[in-house]
């Protein structure tokens, strides 16, 4: 997956979980949860949405790699 595809996917999953949230509002280094006012369950649903859409397994121990926009993009674009 390219970085652009990863971003498109993130937007589409985020829209299902928190339609009011705008990925562009997340500053560099900020966590998605903090910047977009997501609670732990939102974040969990976001990760589950990504896993379902990609067919990737995303174990809990990887969640901290998914907490920022850059982290998510990296994770999605380097996983197979």
């Amino acid at each position, binding site marked *: 997956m390219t970085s652009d595809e990863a971003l498109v996917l993130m937007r589409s999953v985020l*829209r*299902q979980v*928190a*339609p*009011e*949230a705008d990925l562009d509002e997340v500053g560099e280094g900020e*966590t998605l*949860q*903090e910047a977009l*006012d*997501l*609670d*732990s*369950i*939102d*974040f*969990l649903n976001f990760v589950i949405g990504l896993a379902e859409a990609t067919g990737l397994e995303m*174990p*809990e*121990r990887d*969640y*901290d790699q998914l*907490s920022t926009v850059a982290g998510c993009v990296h994770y999605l674009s380097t996983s197979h």
Partner: protein
Amino acid sequence: MQGNVIHKSGDYRGTNPNMVDYEVERASFTWEQARRALDGLPGGRGLNIAHEAVVRHASGPRRDHVALRCIGRHGGRLDVTFAELDERSSRFANVLSALGVQAGERVFALMPRTADLYVVALGTLKRRSVLCPLFSAFGPEPIRQRLELGGGRVLITTPTLYRHKVSGIRDRLAELRHVLLAGGTAAPGATQPEATLDLEALLGEAEGEYEIGPTDPEDMALLHFTSGTTGTPKGAVHVHDAVISHHATGRIALDLHPDDVFWCTADPGWVTGTSYGIISPLVHGVTAIVDEGDFDAKRWYEVLEREAVTVWYTAPTALRMLMQAGASMAKDYDLSRLRFIASVGEPLNPEVVVWGQEVLGLAIHDNWWQTETGGIMVANYACMDIRPGSMGRPLPGVEATVLVRDDQGKVVVGDNGAAVEAVVGQEGELALRPGWPSMFRGYLGNPERYQSCFVGGWYLSGDLARRDEDGYFWFIGRGDDVIKSAGHLIGPFEVESALMEHPAVAEAAVIGIPDPLLGEVVKAFVTLHAGYESNEDLRLDLLGFARKRLGAAVAPREIAFDQHLPHTKSGKIMRRLLKARELGLPEGDTSTLEVRP
């Protein structure tokens, strides 16, 4: 109904419990005696929570003991000793004084879990003003409503929370005089938003000494909002006397010992996070862990291991999420320092209790209480056998019972004016005999609603339960339409009102539906005005609309369209029937249902 009993073998990992025999403690316990374990203000000037929590330790042998170990969201760690907490909270009391904030006036905190939150809480109590902590995951609407109902004079928040959640409602809060912003306005390039003050600057200018004025134990100290079925949230009033309960329950139900490292994972915006995140550990002079970060399985195990947490008080949803993360993750960490685990918020399913034993090596002790009770009321104790799924037995000093309800859900009162108690095994409403120190003293500005909580000399909890032959209590469910999600009460009316503000919505009905992780999730059914089409775009628009107003903690997770919501003949929505339909349960008494042609 009991399943497997977990017997206590007497292996307490080297620390004997404070209470070694429940029956003996129950027979001998008095609240008067519990009161004597505290100091009181010098010179017989009363009882003040902040004095018991901080001042007395700061002027004694524990002055250099770590009171708070604060873990930053992005890492980093700050230790605060009792002496430092005393000094800084005195500065905050002086800040309030300089701003003209009086005893009895409400100070609201909408803050992340940082040391500043504790400084604000304790400084407010020193000033004898009233602390009202709000959950920072609330949206602007719950914040506005609570500030308005509570007559908030001062709000302490952060620049980010202010910008996102407060600036847009500020002009509707006539009684709010001061907004103080904590941490961040001093950053390079940051400017102080209009009509706000910089907390750090004010603290820096203030004196570090403050003498607490005479405090009547019945003076209002804390205000916690909770939700009902109808109407606005209710502000439960707690007084300084509550500290006796916070101390006694810390000793008996959480088994706190002087060298403990205690972690209560609740946010102080909920009553657990104030009674047990702030007050109880400090009163006991133990080290409290304060983690700014949100739930993350790895992070939590790291905290437990690195900080050598000995007593851990958490919630079923968090435990279920840890369970979901798998036993193998837990095995990566050394959790041998843990001695006692307790949980509150909703019944702990037996599987989680057993998981605790297998994976963490410790049973998990469920307990029950609510905003109105101010402290733990029914609990599983270190010394007592656990019946997985049961909330345990009443705290020594607390009389609990189950009262019989009629078909309409009203407690049955006999000819003698006394409420009828249920027999063993019979379902009814969990009730408590008033008289423990942390009982709420009123709903702010709503005496009728307060009075309606008492029948025949009992406080009615609104929760349904039954009691077994050995006096263990078992939770059944809520006796009203209030939704319990992740251990927090959510009022359906609050959610319905927010949805009704959307131009497409003609009517909304909100119920809780069972969820394996959260207990219940909030689901909304909406009827659209003519001219609006029910489609996915509108559903997401409504979801976003509700989340923006209410915040993630309160907003529905699911929205469905329904043009035929069930009503009573008087026009009220029958949430119960909606729920029965949704869950495929018997619909019960529908005699008041309006049948539309």
